[in-house]
């Protein structure tokens, strides 16, 4: 089974943003440009995440989803601030193939069961965002790492699958945006224990990190942001200037790189993985 490389696009208003530990969001450009480029260069799926969840209206995200889904013929997962079966229905109608839920599912786990029953398990991705605690334990957080829950991430993973999650997206908040590599303990402990596919998320800074989380973390798919976004920004500058709708645009205007992360492209990652004996679709 080929491993899946999944770019993750965090959206704030009309813009693609990227933070560190989900904080300090920088505007990187228009999400549609990134999405199209990733589609054309061999992305296996895309994930859109509303980075401000329900703090603002979500119509702009659904507009972006609709525009993207019209022209991009790979699976699209959308998440961030989905609270109810009705929110999920609206998101799927706008063109998402799958949705991811975290905060609302932890607040009311039955949401997973209801959503799986209404739309099929394979449509429901439960996102688990965890912070490492003492004794190699991990605690599940909500609201992009802002709220602790006291819930053990591993126990929560098992329960989410029992309730009907079709896939789990497992993010280390400690590593998110840092480029220091995935938290292999976190990913592996969950991937080994659950019968559904696990998408590893948070921390990729090099092609080697991707290889490690597949081989040692036993992930079925890998979610990438900084590595791909910073490379794309550097190689495909958007001179239209119309990205400056809102948010912190200092970074994009300055044209600086982001040193902890080795920028790369999906074909480069796949070429490396195939050389290491992995199976990849669209390998160059």
């Amino acid at each position, binding site marked *: 089974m080929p491993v899946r490389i999944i770019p993750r696009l965090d959206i704030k208003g009309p813009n693609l943003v990227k933070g560190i530990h989900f904080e300090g969001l920088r505007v990187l450009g228009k999400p549609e440009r990134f999405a199209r480029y990733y589609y054309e260069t061999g992305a296996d799926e895309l994930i859109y995440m509303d980075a401000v969840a329900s703090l603002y209206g979500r119509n702009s995200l659904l507009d972006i989803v609709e525009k993207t889904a*019209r022209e991009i013929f790979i699976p699209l997962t959308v998440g961030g601030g989905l609270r109810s079966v009705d929110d999920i229905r609206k998101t*799927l109608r706008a063109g998402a193939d799958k949705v991811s839920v975290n905060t609302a599912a932890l607040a009311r786990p039955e949401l997973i069961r209801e959503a799986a029953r209404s*739309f099929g398990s*394979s449509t429901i991705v439960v996102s688990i965002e965890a912070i490492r605690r003492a004794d190699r334990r991990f605690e599940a957080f909500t609201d992009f790492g802002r709220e602790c829950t006291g819930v053990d991430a591993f126990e929560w993973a098992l329960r989410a699958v029992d309730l009907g999650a079709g896939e789990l997206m497992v993010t280390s908040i400690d590593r998110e945006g840092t480029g220091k590599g995935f938290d292999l303990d976190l990913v592996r402990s969950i991937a080994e224990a659950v019968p*559904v596919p696990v998408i590893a998320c948070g921390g990729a800074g090099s092609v080697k990190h991707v290889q490690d989380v597949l081989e040692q973390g036993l992930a079925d798919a890998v979610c990438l942001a900084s590595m791909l976004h910073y490379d794309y920004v550097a190689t495909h500058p958007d001179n239209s200037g119309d990205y400056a709708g809102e948010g912190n645009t200092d970074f994009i205007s300055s044209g600086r790189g982001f040193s902890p992360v080795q920028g790369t492209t999906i074909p480069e990652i796949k070429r490396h993985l195939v050389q290491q004996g992995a199976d990849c679709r669209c390998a160059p």
Partner: protein
Amino acid sequence: MMRDDSPVKPNVAIVDYGLGNLFSIRHACIHVGLDPMVTSSGTEIAGADAVLLPGVGAFGDAMAALERRDLIAPIRESMDAGKPLVGICLGMQLLMSESFEFGRHRGLGLIEGDVRQIDGANHGSRPLKIPHVGWNRVCRPCMNEGEPVADPWTASPLQGLKDGEYMYFVHSYHVVPTDPSVVLSTTRYGDTLFCSSLRRGSVFATQFHPERSGQTGLQVYRNIRDILVSNHERGKHLA
């Protein structure tokens, strides 16, 4: 990317019974120059040039939804008139005689055979993940040695695809047709070699999602369009 431009735009009824990602199927149709309508009207379904039966979710619920909306008769009517019927994912499974998903459910019975769960037994050191999610290879069915090597994909919706092309799958069940000659392609997941697409007469169905399988998937939609356009030409000729 240019939209495919064809002088005739065959219309396709995408059956809306409340389940499945109709958006992506509709846009794949538009992209290749088909004229799709998402509909739960029996008249529209029976009157369209082709019927596309999508579906995500549970088999029993889907059959109940089709029955409740009186859509089974129009789907049969269209098929009996020789018009193409395309089943996708759960829509493929619904064509079969019966399914064993959460009990035992009768299907549309248009293709003889049943629907079974993917065998998730241990495969080496790691158990097989279910559902089967992701890209997998679609291959021509094995032929017995000595048989003439006619390409089964010629003039089918898989025409022009390379053997072993990747398509996107999301499913926990697969179909087992009684008559092996309807199997158009097979796919291996773990130790299970399953039927990933089938064809019998004007019925074609895929377990994978061609509308979510990039350019190779769009080729399947283009082939369907070409078949519909040539049906249209032939119809004109006969009239």
